[in-house]
């Protein structure tokens, strides 16, 4: 059976944010990525200062077309291509695209069913709309970054969490608009603000503010309503525990051989005595001391026997040899190297985990899509000489 998005054609004019195109490409859509001639998309340069490259991962499954759409001749090529696809997506506000003739109204005129996606850091209106476009700055203004980490300082995420979220929201919105266009014949502009995405994910801050008139605290690896939830250093690594009920706690205490200290009849047997208000006191210290005496494997077995949510804090070193990861096909071969797999498994649709093509060199598809882009054969050299396009080999 085919992949779910087979036949869907996406023109990807994103810059530095590969997750939009990857959502489509990983599940079978035909993604034509437009990049600047010369350096190409910024993801091609990521890690270059340390002689590493992640481009093969970020560009997998996508075709590369090198066009400078900031000049009229290049914008014309992009507009021409947009006339023949189901979706086009930009990571720039529509206002900046209008002078180039790449606004929604202009592209819709030639392709009424077109879905027109726009991702911006802070939306296309409001006082922050022109702030610089970096995931870290969006996160800094969302409240989540300030609330992540130990009490003494916030912790930055190790990957662009806000842009991953916002990209995935935008792709969902674009697919919703595509479904609507299939029946109505009319496409839509779909836009997503990364900042608004991070704000509305908030699951407790605004609710506690409204209901209790309290503000959130930075709790490290704790969670305000599930006690204890924390991460502990075992003899040989870090282990996360997340106890969701008195019953789970009592089961954990029993399997840990700590009934006398933590079990029924002790002060910790029932919440709210384990809650955050009390937690950073004695119980926290007791748990730390306890986990320091065992290995993560022993901790894992205790949690499994007690059916309590717990698990080692895996890094790629552990994940690379993890049986669960292997069975779930979360490591897959792409172009001769091992990359992350795709999480949504379409049961029974064989081949979805193995059929992702490697990414292309910059401009490798410029020549093959020439006709669709409205470039006459004779123009190729001229446009290339002018730097409007580049043809990779």
């Amino acid at each position, binding site marked *: 059976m*085919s992949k*779910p998005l*087979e*036949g869907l054609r996406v023109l990807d004019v994103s810059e530095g944010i590969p997750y939009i195109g990857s959502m489509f490409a990983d*599940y079978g859509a035909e993604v034509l990525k437009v990049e600047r001639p010369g350096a190409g998309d910024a993801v091609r340069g990521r890690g270059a200062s*340390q002689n*590493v490259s992640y481009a093969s991962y970020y560009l997998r499954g996508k075709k590369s077309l090198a066009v400078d759409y900031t000049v009229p001749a290049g914008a014309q090529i992009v507009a021409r291509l947009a006339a023949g696809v189901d979706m086009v997506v930009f990571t720039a506000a529509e206002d900046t695209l209008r002078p180039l003739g790449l606004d929604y109204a202009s592209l819709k005129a030639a392709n009424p069913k077109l879905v027109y996606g726009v991702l911006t850091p802070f939306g296309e*209106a409001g006082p922050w709309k022109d702030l610089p476009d970096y995931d*870290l700055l969006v996160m*800094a203004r*969302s*409240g989540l970054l*300030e609330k992540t980490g130990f009490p003494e*300082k*916030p*912790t*930055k995420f190790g*990957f662009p969490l806000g842009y*991953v979220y916002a990209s*995935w929201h935008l792709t969902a919105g674009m*697919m919703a*608009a595509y*479904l609507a266009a299939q029946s109505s014949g009319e496409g839509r502009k*779909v836009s*997503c603000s*990364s900042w*608004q995405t991070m704000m*509305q994910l*908030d*699951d407790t*801050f*605004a609710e506690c503010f*409204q*209901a209790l008139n309290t503000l*959130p605290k*930075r709790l490290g690896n704790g969670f305000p309503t599930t006690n204890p939830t924390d*991460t502990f250093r075992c003899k040989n690594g870090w282990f*996360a*525990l997340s106890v*969701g009920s008195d019953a789970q706690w009592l089961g954990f205490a029993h399997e840990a051989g700590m009934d006398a200290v933590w079990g029924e009849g002790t002060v910790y047997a029932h919440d709210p005595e384990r809650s955050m208000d009390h937690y950073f006191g004695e119980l926290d210290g007791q748990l730390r001391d306890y986990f320091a005496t065992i290995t993560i494997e022993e901790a894992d077995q205790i949690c499994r026997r007690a059916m309590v*949510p717990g*698990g*080692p*804090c895996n*890094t*790629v070193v552990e994940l690379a040899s993890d*049986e*669960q990861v292997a069975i*779930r096909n*979360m*490591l897959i071969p792409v172009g001769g*190297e*091992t*990359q992350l*797999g795709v*999480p*949504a498994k*379409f*049961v029974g*649709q064989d081949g979805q985990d193995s059929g992702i093509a490697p990414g292309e060199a910059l401009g490798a598809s410029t020549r093959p899509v020439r006709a669709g882009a409205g470039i006459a054969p004779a123009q190729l050299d001229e446009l290339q000489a002018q730097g409007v396009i580049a043809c990779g080999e």
Partner: protein
Amino acid sequence: MEQIKKAGPLQGLKVVDFTIALAGVYISWQLADMGAEVWKIERKGAGDQARTWDPFINGLSTLYTAYNKNKQSIELDLRAAAGKQAVFDMVKEADIVLENFKSGSIDRLGLGYDVLRQINPRIVFVSLSGFGGSGPLLKYPCYDAIAAARGGFAATNGEPDGAPMKAGNANCDTLTGTHALNAALMGVIQARRTGQGCHIDIGMTDTVMVACGETLLDYTRGQYQQARFGNHDRFTAPYGLFETRDGWAAVIADTEPRWQAVCSVLGRPEWAADPRFATNADRIAHRDELVQAMEAETVHWKRRDLEKALLAAGVPASEVLPFIEAYTSDHANATGCTQWVDQAKIGLMRFYTNPLQFDDQPCPIHCGAPLLGQDSRQVLESIGYTAEQIDQLYADGVVASSMF
């Protein structure tokens, strides 16, 4: 006030929603915001587990309300044959079924994909769980913090020699929900194309492995060094969080002119010529010294003043806003970040609006979160049940409207 709006893109799409935990509830919330009709099937007398979670206003969990607006609640006894029949009748009309019970529970209930596909071959059936539907961890419980640990999400954040760090919100739940939302819509696109539905199996730990994308390549290429890199970027410096007099600020100098501007704003122009900091490669090699030197200056600044001065000098920067400052910011108020909604049992409440806009219009919030069984009768009517049939189901205790 009469508003003229184009219908949401998913108008007409119907969702049978069994989800009871955040990751799944998030999917149906997003679908509802985009115009889908979401029939939230709730266990008779109990309902969504979030209904019992702190905090409460007038006995209703505000956590529950946040993720269930725009949905309809049908309270059913799923063990009764007539309750199952009601589900079957809904599935006949539906496009998507969502569930995030413990793996296999829905099959034991007799409402699994193999049963429902007989009723509607085009149905897209999404199963969401902690570890997915296979593998040795299948039967074990998983919460957000455990998915963060096992999937490598936590190991990606924090100081290299310190503890791994999960997010300040339940982000593994909602990140998985967001990916599964995409998968559900892909399933519908495929069903419209092929006439065939599908069963989608998605796990939280699998999804959050996206955090490891780069370090996995480091590892498999044999250049593995470490899993996490603290509050500063691996490849560009300065690029990270700096302490200020009243909190923290993010500062990014990803070009040489921007670095020189940082030096001048901080009153240390001599750094630009300091051999330790001359080029990006030098600054990466001396990153700890750089951060220390910069923080010795930034701690004298108020975060907002530092942001203003750096932005004016062309340096990407931002103060790190506490939640309340983001929530009440001019930008939040000018862009309709939240909307007043009349919530049953509570009254006017502020809900976040959806981050998506269609044709530059926000997704409307038609109604707050439903009380338990609030829409039981109306939904059954909409799928063709007569008033007498519905009365009988109530009398038999198969359908209810507990209204809490």
